[in-house]
């Protein structure tokens, strides 16, 4: 599948501070890409470069195979993390303005605005000024303003922040709908629950560097470390040659759950057999780490590595 947008070794620095260290990512057509990373990792910087607001110092960004130019911004919809609208303008005028900015003719813009207002059940609000409508309503207007020109690529920076749960779900549905219509979406987020249910692919960046990239199932699979969960009615004993570590915990309903890290030589099949021998087995499952766990682990790992690499050798600490 062709990539809508891809970056190769994109580098950007503000003065001394490197905010994007040779990041390469690609968003395939009709897919959703999730960009994860702790605060200040460089997500917004990368997203701004994709949205043609800033340019990389080095490296290349390609849109539909062409080097990214300002004109491509017409085929993108962009919603920044910090967002706002003209308070004194009416909802309809505002949307018309954005549609025209994205290259629509006046007539096309009017049709698109009407269609979207209708869809969002906001026809009666069209003539209201933004300062007169509720915050949730304004958020909807905000989202419509970046999709109404039917963009091939939707770039969303923290799309769920600031939205109440009902509107966040609405946005989620709209994002999925865009994907199903063949458009691509890249978004950044802190919220792991959205990542697993929405994304086809995700990347984690930390300190301006990409530390992980892949499809959600790939990543989870690759982080599977041979851990299993076994449940019993009564406490049991496992032969020690099977396991690396084991943890026992008693659940509320009086059952006993064991988390077993196997030695790599054993297959799940072996463990199941041994487990059945040990007692009356009522529950057996693979423990595939959640994206949240992977995120925390990856970032912690990256922190550790970067700390090591920047630690100053003792000789340098001596004053000249």
């Amino acid at each position, binding site marked *: 599948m062709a990539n809508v947008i891809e970056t190769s070794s994109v580098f950007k620095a503000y003065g001394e501070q490197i905010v994007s260290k040779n990041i390469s990512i690609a968003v395939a057509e009709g897919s959703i890409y999730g960009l994860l990373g702790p605060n200040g990792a460089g997500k917004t910087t990368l997203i701004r470069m994709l949205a043609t*607001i800033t340019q990389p110092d080095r490296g290349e960004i390609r849109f539909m195979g062409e080097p990214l130019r300002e004109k491509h911004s017409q085929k993108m919809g*962009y919603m920044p993390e910090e967002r706002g609208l003209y308070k004194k303008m009416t909802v309809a005028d505002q949307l018309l*303005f954005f549609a025209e900015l994205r290259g629509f003719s006046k007539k096309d813009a009017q049709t698109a605005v009407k269609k979207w207002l209708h869809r969002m059940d906001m026809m009666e609000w069209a003539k209201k000024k933004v300062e007169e409508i509720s915050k949730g309503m304004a958020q909807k207007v905000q989202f419509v303003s970046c999709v109404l020109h039917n963009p091939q690529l939707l770039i969303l920076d923290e799309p769920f922040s600031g939205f109440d749960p009902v509107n966040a779900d609405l946005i989620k549905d709209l994002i999925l709908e865009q994907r199903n219509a063949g458009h691509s979406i890249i978004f950044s987020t802190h919220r792991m629950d959205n990542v697993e249910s929405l994304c086809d692919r995700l990347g984690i960046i930390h300190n301006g560097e990409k530390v992980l990239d892949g499809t959600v199932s790939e990543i989870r699979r690759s982080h599977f470390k041979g851990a299993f969960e076994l449940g019993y009615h009564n406490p049991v004993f496992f032969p020690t040659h099977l396991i690396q570590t084991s943890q026992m915990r008693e659940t509320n309903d009086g059952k006993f759950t064991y988390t077993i890290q196997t030695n790599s030589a054993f297959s799940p099949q072996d463990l199941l057999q041994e487990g059945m021998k040990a007692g009356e087995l009522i529950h057996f499952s693979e423990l595939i780490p959640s994206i949240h766990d992977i995120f925390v682990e990856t970032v912690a790992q990256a922190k550790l590595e970067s700390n090591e690499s920047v630690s100053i050798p003792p000789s340098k600490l001596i004053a000249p």
Partner: protein
Amino acid sequence: MKNIWVIFKREYLSRVKNKTFIIMTFLGPVLMVGFYASTLYIATKGSDDKRIKNVYVSQMIPFINDTLLSHEVANNSNKAKKNGTESGLLNTLLILAPSNKDSAIEHVKRGSVDGWLSIGDYDFSTLDSTNYYTLQTPSMIEMEILNKWIQDRAVQNAYSKLGLRESQIDSLRSQGSIKTKELSKDGNISDSSSDLKSGIGFGLAFLVYLFIFIYGSMVMRSAMEEKTNRIVEIIVSSVNPFHLMMGKILGVAAVGLTQFIAWIVLAIALISGISSFGIGQQKIEPTSMVNVPGAMGNSLSAQQIETIQSTGDAHSLLALLENLPYFQILAIFLLFFIGGYLLYSSFFAAIGSAVNESSDVQQFMLPVSLPLVFGFIIAQSVALKSPHGILAQVFSMFPLTSPVVMVVRAPFGVPISEIILSACILFASFFLMVWVSGRIYRIGILSYGKKPTWKDLWKWIR
């Protein structure tokens, strides 16, 4: 380019549709006239202190004729009584001082009189030993009045020595004032008035000054609003920041021009309404009233001017207005108003994009607005005194002051070569500034957080 138009349209329509704009368009001229009228009123009516000042006056030379002074004093007090405060000596009542010097001083000290004018010379020919004793420092105007009174006395004294009476002296003064006749290179002679030209020039310069500030700060607020609203990031994702700035500057300029044209149309409607009403009552049949404004636009022959002049002041003023180089004045006004606005508003746009909140504006506003204020001061003093002088010439070339100074000179006739040169300098510096401002704008609109310093701005430009 299309995006400049979209931005332009939004800036223009959102402002023109605004209620404040509509109200100001109708109320503006009224406020402006009111402002002028009240300053004029205050300037002519002088102080708010309506109290009549009592001033002792005495001549310390014992042998000169006391009767002359007492006659003057009596004359003054008669006038003051008759006209109230409108005496010949504006709020001042002269009283003959007691012959004892110490008691005169004592009265001034106690405040029973406001001052004591002690004239040390018998025929007023010198004022070296003439003193004014007073408790409070007198105003310049008070001193001016006393000085003038003594000067007048000196002249009258001299005339009366020749045996002339007061009424005769008054009739000796020439009546009216000098009329200016301007010669053009091709031999035409036309009436002219320096007062009128100064007035018009100054009025236009004031408009330019006011408009640059009003609309320049509108551009600034607009940039700031977009930044604080966080809407700017969405806009720059589809518009080049430079185009955004240009669209904004041009959109607000169009608002200013719209307002200005509305004012001109209102003024013409008002003036032609008044004049057709006035003349129509006297001579012209109601059916031909429509022709009046048109007739006024035609140039009048010399003979017509003569006849008009003899019919009275109001008409001669009209004739003088006829002779002004309208086209040149209007062309200079528009050219330098637009050029000045563009130059300054690109500064203002850069400021608006750099700051985070309105309280940070001040530190950047001052150095940017100083040249404009300075230009206005130059326009007030130098250009009115010597519109063709070297100072006026220099500052009508300097791009930061030329929008005001050149406009004040316009009615006096400025050589076309100077106008072209100055306009070229002005527009060239606009293009330079807009490039510089564009660079500040580009980075400024996306920089939040700490208050920018001059050093930051310099870094952004480079």
